[in-house]
């Protein structure tokens, strides 16, 4: 039951095969069993059960609210939730309880979806591993799948692999079947990166299509609420609920079309797939490259046009991304001074001393480092040289995409990450900055250009870990992008984690049936 799609669960509810309360209990149990993943910062058990009962009452009356009524979901801990602690995995907001819901959270609640809890992340979403949060690292559920345990010869518990990040908790929650969908945030790849490493579908919609109101910002000009699900169809249903203009977010635009279900008969022969040659980046693993070629071949065999294209400014993207990111971070973090909310230092000999010690105690090294460099980039004597230059390059990157999509390309196919998930031990050898630069290399250009992008799991590596590929579409073509993604999903035959899970609980769960999948190979 926990492995079903939203549509299937919705049907199961209506047919009375399971009730929202039963499902909620199952998920809560599973959260407890998978506690070692550290996917959740807070589990909202009471609230979840209350909502589930309300949903159940609606179902019994025959008036469910829609496809999400009674569906358990999880929310990254940088989305504000009314009366529920929202920490950004930072000491700064350790005890912060917002008085309002983020628009995306409110929309899900309004649809009757059941909030299970707030998921773990890198502090203030600054990271690509979900290893740099105040509540400890998130473990990738695939660390405990039979595929990894046997194929990689992993034996000891210390061999666990990271989820990627920064929305690692959300990806782990969905991958470990404790929630059907989860909200992440995506600034440079923070939703797609963990999505790829955890073997789930991770969508970053077009900038402006989904409201950021209530999302505690990292980089306002690039942040987009992300959607993590186990199938492309589920992501489409969720986007259909979340998309649209919000009066509270002046950067939102009306949805170009309603989105409920994706057509099953999408004809891939009308599609032109671009393979950007610049994405053959150093450090790209053989296996990821192989997956990339394989899916490109699948497209070709199915009758799609596949063309090599060039996005010439790609190589400059990551460094400019970091300049812009750090500058906005420096600005956005200025409000955390310990006065209105959040951590306040005991050192109060003067207001300035209190600011300094509050911020020193409240933020980790990564956050403080970005604030420092960001302020440096914004100094009067540096502004033109760094910020303005980076903005110009950003425009060039957006233009690259515009040219490619203007030349008849419908969608770009790229890797999401360089490799499969790293062992925690190996990953933490490098510092956060280096890792971010490596991990976001394929994902942040879509944020720089504001384009929709989705990571779809396509196969397992030799270590038994998921590999995902990324599809990037033109602005506001999210629906078409998801149609192509669904075709990929149906073609590649990515195994469900429960099939790979060789543990007691999965065998005991008769509902965890394998999704119908077709392999085109």
């Amino acid at each position: 039951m926990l492995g079903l799609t939203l549509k299937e669960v919705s049907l199961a509810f209506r047919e009375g095969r399971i009730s929202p309360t039963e499902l909620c209990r199952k998920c809560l149990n599973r959260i407890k069993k998978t506690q070692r993943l550290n996917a959740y910062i807070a589990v909202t058990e009471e609230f979840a059960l209350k909502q589930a009962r309300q949903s159940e009452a609606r179902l019994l009356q025959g008036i469910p609210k829609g496809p999400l009524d009674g569906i358990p979901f999880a929310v990254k801990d940088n989305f504000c939730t009314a009366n529920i602690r929202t920490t950004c995995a930072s000491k700064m907001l350790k005890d912060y309880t917002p008085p309002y819901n983020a628009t995306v959270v409110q929309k899900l609640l309004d649809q009757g979806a059941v909030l299970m809890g707030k998921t773990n992340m890198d502090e203030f979403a600054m990271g690509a591993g979900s290893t740099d949060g105040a509540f400890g690292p998130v473990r990738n559920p695939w660390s405990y799948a039979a595929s990894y345990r046997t194929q990689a010869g992993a034996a000891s518990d210390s061999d666990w692999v990271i989820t990627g990040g920064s929305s690692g908790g959300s990806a782990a929650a969905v991958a470990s079947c404790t929630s059907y969908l989860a909200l992440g945030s995506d600034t440079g790849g923070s939703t797609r990166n963990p999505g790829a490493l955890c073997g789930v579908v991770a969508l970053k919609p077009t900038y402006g299509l989904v409201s950021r109101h209530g999302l505690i910002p990292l980089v306002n000009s690039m942040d987009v609420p992300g959607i993590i699900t186990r199938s492309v169809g589920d992501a489409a249903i969720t986007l259909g609920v979340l998309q649209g203009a919000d009066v509270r977010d002046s950067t939102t635009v009306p949805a170009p079309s309603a989105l409920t279900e994706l057509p099953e008969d999408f004809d891939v022969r009308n599609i032109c797939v671009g393979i950007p040659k610049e994405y053959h980046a150093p450090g790209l693993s053989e296996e990821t490259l192989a997956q990339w070629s394989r899916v490109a071949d699948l497209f070709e065999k199915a009758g799609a046009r596949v063309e090599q294209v060039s996005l010439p400014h790609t190589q400059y993207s990551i460094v400019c991304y970091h300049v812009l990111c750090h500058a906005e971070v420096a600005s956005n973090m200025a409000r955390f001074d310990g006065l209105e909310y959040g951590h306040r230092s005991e050192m109060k000999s003067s207001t300035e001393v209190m600011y300094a010690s509050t911020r020193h105690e409240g933020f980790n090294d990564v956050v403080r480092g970005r604030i420092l460099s960001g302020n440096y980039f914004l100094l009067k004597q540096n502004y033109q040289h760094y910020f303005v230059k980076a903005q110009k390059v950003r425009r060039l990157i957006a233009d690259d995409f515009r040219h490619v999509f203007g030349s008849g390309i419908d969608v770009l196919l790229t890797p999401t990450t360089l490799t499969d998930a790293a062992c925690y031990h190996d990953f933490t050898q490098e510092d956060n900055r280096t890792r971010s630069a490596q991990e976001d290399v394929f994902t942040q250009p879509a944020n720089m250009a504001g384009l929709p992008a989705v990571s779809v799991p396509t196969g397992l590596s030799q270590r038994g870990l998921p590999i995902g590929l990324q599809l990037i579409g033109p602005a506001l073509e999210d629906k078409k992008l998801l149609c192509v993604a669904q075709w990929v999903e149906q073609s590649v035959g990515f195994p469900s984690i429960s099939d790979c899970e060789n543990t007691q609980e999965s065998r005991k769960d008769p509902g965890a049936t394998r999704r119908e999948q077709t392999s085109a190979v």
Partner: protein
Amino acid sequence: MAASRIAARELLHNIKLIPYYQKSSCLFIRWISTSKFQCSSQPLEKSALQQLVGVVGLEIHAQISSNTKLFSGSSVQFLAPPNSLVSFFDASLPGTLPVLNKRCVEAAVMTGLALNCTINKKSVFDRKHYFYADLPAGYQITQQCRPVAVDGVLTYSFLGGRKRNQVMRKNVYIKQIQLEQDSGKSLHDDVNSQTLIDLNRAGVGLMELVMEPNMSCGEEAAAAVRELQLILQALGTCQGNMSEGQLRVDANVSVHRPGEPLGTRTEVKNINSLRYLARAIDFEIQRQTEVVQRGGAVLNETRAYDSKSGETVAMRDKEGLQDYRFMPEPNLPPLLVFEDEASLPAGVEAGQAVLLCTLRAGLPELPSVRRDRLVQTYGLLPEHSFTLVNEDGLMEYFEAVMKGTSRDPRKVIGWVTNELLGLLKQQDLSVSHSPVPPAALAELLELQEAGRISSSAAKQVFQEMWRSPGKAAPQIIQERDLGLVSDDADLHRICQKVVDSHPDEVRAVRSGNQKVLNKLMGLVQKETKGRADPVLVRKILQEKTS
């Protein structure tokens, strides 16, 4: 001697009524007398070239008159309980976003149009960073880089010349008008060494107007700000009350010798009235002049005006030079202003857009136009047009009186600016709270015009109307027997009595000194308590003394 006594009594009578009037409605005139510095409006002579002159530029923050704040739905209100008007955004709760208030944009555009600015069809918002306890986000959203309006000019006038009755017209250029957020207020409690923060004002919309250094003394600056105040009030874009902080003026002051580069400037803050503005600037020019003449150097610093001592004092420096680390505000799309409905792009509804043509058409009559019109229509003196326009509602009052009377406007203006304004000032009332409505005054003036009462009786009637609101002039005249005595027999009797008892004066008149006749007239008026028809009295007295 007797004649001069009458004149003196008339004069005393007037002075008693107008002391407050003089104080406030002749603001410009007063400033000149208090100014340590006089503006030099004459071309400089060769010997004066070495003279140091003041250069004054102004930065003015005008609080936009709007029901809600610039980027949130919180109410705007003066003197509300602390922190009672604070939205999540105003308190900078994480995840909240600014939503631009259309009313504030329209106010800024209207102000820009009234000040002859170029309106930028596309302007943007920036963040200006600094840490301060009453700035909860750690940055202010402002328009540093591309403001909503630029390159305007404010024409202001003041009364100058030897007699202070010559209208001096000057221009000050407006560099830009930018929209920005106000900050909250900090209350420092030194006893308990703590700071209390009130965020009611945080996020209220401001227009910052930057005036070029085109002024040379306190009087000019005060006149320019007064004109701006009147314009803003006419537009309804700012209430303009300086003491409530709705209009905050910082002055950039420097001195130099004409022809040489500008001197180092100081910024003078903490000025909360027009009078203090003039004094602070003049003090600062004097101070800098003395520094330079002593051979010293003026420091680039911020100084505060101390209204008690009348001096400016250096403010504690905020840790050296601030780098505000400006960057574009990423949560707000560019602010677009359109010419008219036809120029709207697809998808933008007319109701949501800011349209220049609509705002332009809705601009009210501006103070300078009003003054010109008053002078032209009614033949008033320029200084009277100043008084009428400067006092809120006085012009409307005057024009309403004019509708109800056929009296010479130049006579009516005396009533409005002396009798009415004098009493209003005496009791600290605004024109709208006058107990005598314009129609009632018009009725009184009509009675005078028709020869039913004398001018001095009219003044007594007016006083009584003031004391007993609602009582009409004819009723008062009847009750108090103030009607003009024009009965020939009565007047003859009274005149005869006066002539008989003042043989010396009669002799003087007869020997050709016609001035003495005025004294006799005064005596007749005294007998009749000012009710005698002066024309008749003069005629009768002339007959009796010929």
